[in-house]
């Protein structure tokens, strides 16, 4: 399984590096502009960073699906499916790799934003002020924790949703290459199905959430159940995809 994952990473390593490099350059530019007091240019760099992040987020999700598509449709598929491992392991490795990709990308973003924050701090406060600032953070740590909790909540729900988008995509692609075979309407059908499943899953989720709020269940618990709900859906999609590969896939 680890070996399978190793090769899944290898297939997509390049783009992560490109994203990290672009963001790194932009951070550097941002830092230099700040030092030179060219605020406008620094703001442009920051704007560009956000733009790159958005595009890259989209690209990273797409890339997992594009790679999977190649693993199903091109001769490259022989590489993966001649391997004497069960389809559950093959797809499991693929999905975990895809999730970790998302995780890495988010980590790159957090590091980028952290760096920008530090640059601002260094610019607008001297060392003494910065130390005081840090002291302040410790002093009001209780308040800060709440903020951290909020940040964590936003990030985790973004993460969960992102993972769901990719796993649902993998399921749709599997379906397209097994049961639906390769007819003319296949791609169209799978897009329709993707949207439908996405909508249905979100519908059920908001139903559950509203129900929990109405039943006076605390916000934290409701959020946790929300996350569990998505995890269950992800696992169900994984099992369904692996089963389809095992029984139906012809490459």
């Amino acid at each position, binding site marked *: 399984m680890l*070996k399978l994952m*190793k*090769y899944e990473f*290898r*297939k997509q390593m*390049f783009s992560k590096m490109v994203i990290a490099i672009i963001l790194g350059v932009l951070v550097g530019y941002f830092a230099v502009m700040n030092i030179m007091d060219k605020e406008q240019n620094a703001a442009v760099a920051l704007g560009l960073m956000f733009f790159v992040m958005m595009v890259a987020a989209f690209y990273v999700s797409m890339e997992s699906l594009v790679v999977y598509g190649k693993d199903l449709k091109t*001769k*490259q*598929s*022989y*590489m993966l*499916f*001649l*391997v*004497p*491992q*069960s389809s559950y392991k093959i797809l499991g490795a693929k999905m975990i790799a895809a999730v970790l990709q998302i995780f890495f990308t988010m980590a790159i973003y957090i590091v980028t934003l952290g760096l920008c924050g530090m640059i601002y701090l260094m610019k607008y406060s001297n060392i003494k002020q910065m130390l005081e600032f840090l002291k302040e953070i410790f002093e009001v740590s209780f308040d800060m924790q709440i903020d951290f909790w909020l940040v964590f909540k936003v990030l985790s729900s973004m993460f969960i949703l992102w993972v769901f988008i990719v796993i649902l995509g993998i399921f749709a692609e599997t379906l397209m290459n097994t049961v639906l*075979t*390769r*007819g003319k309407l296949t791609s169209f059908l799978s897009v329709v199905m993707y949207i439908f499943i996405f909508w249905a899953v979100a519908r059920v989720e908001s139903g559950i959430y509203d129900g929990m709020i109405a039943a006076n269940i605390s916000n934290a618990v409701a959020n946790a159940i929300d996350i569990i709900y998505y995890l269950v859906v992800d696992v169900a999609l994984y099992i369904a995809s692996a089963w389809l590969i095992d*029984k*139906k*896939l*012809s*490459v």
Partner: protein
Amino acid sequence: MLECSNLKKVYLNKTAVEDISLTLEKGRIYALLGPNGSGKTTFMKMISGLVKPTHGTIEYEGMPIGVQSKKDIAYMSTEPFFYSFMTVESVGKYYKDFFEDFDEDKYVKLIGEMELNMKDKVNKLSSGMSAKLKIAATMARNAKLYLLDEPLNGIDIIAREKIITTILNAASDDSTIVISTHLVDELEAVIDSVVFIKDGKSVIYGDAEQIREQRGKSIVELYKEIYG
């Protein structure tokens, strides 16, 4: 060692394999003969587990095709199939990572014999070179059953000799080799059993020498008669 009965594979709009029933025996070298599009590739892909039959059964050592059979069966396709980010060296690593029967020393030796470079990028190889790489990687496995789809395609005469030598070196009492080809004369002396496939059906199969004696014809002549 391998038994297929009434194998059939239908794709959306065409039948690739109509009806193949045959038994492969241990220690033999089979020629799988037939023109392009006769169903040879689909047949091999069904045995290797890449394609699921629409109908019929395959039993390898009494088991259905699955993880266990994939450990023992080495399939080599006509087209190159390695990941484009790989080098000759990392193809070997990949095989070592996933196939217990892969013999690293044998791979190194074969790569040398085929005059390939470990550092060469897979996607920079000429078609002849990548055909040699496929053979080296596949034959470096000590598999129980080798399925070689058109191993001589696009390869010059010198390299053909090397490939035939490699194949003969892998032949043993407990390994079986199936070679699909439409170049029968190159392999007439190498094989001891034949399977003729026509329009997705196995028309004649058996011991090559017996067939020659019964029909008073060489396999090449028989090939011309069946498909001519």
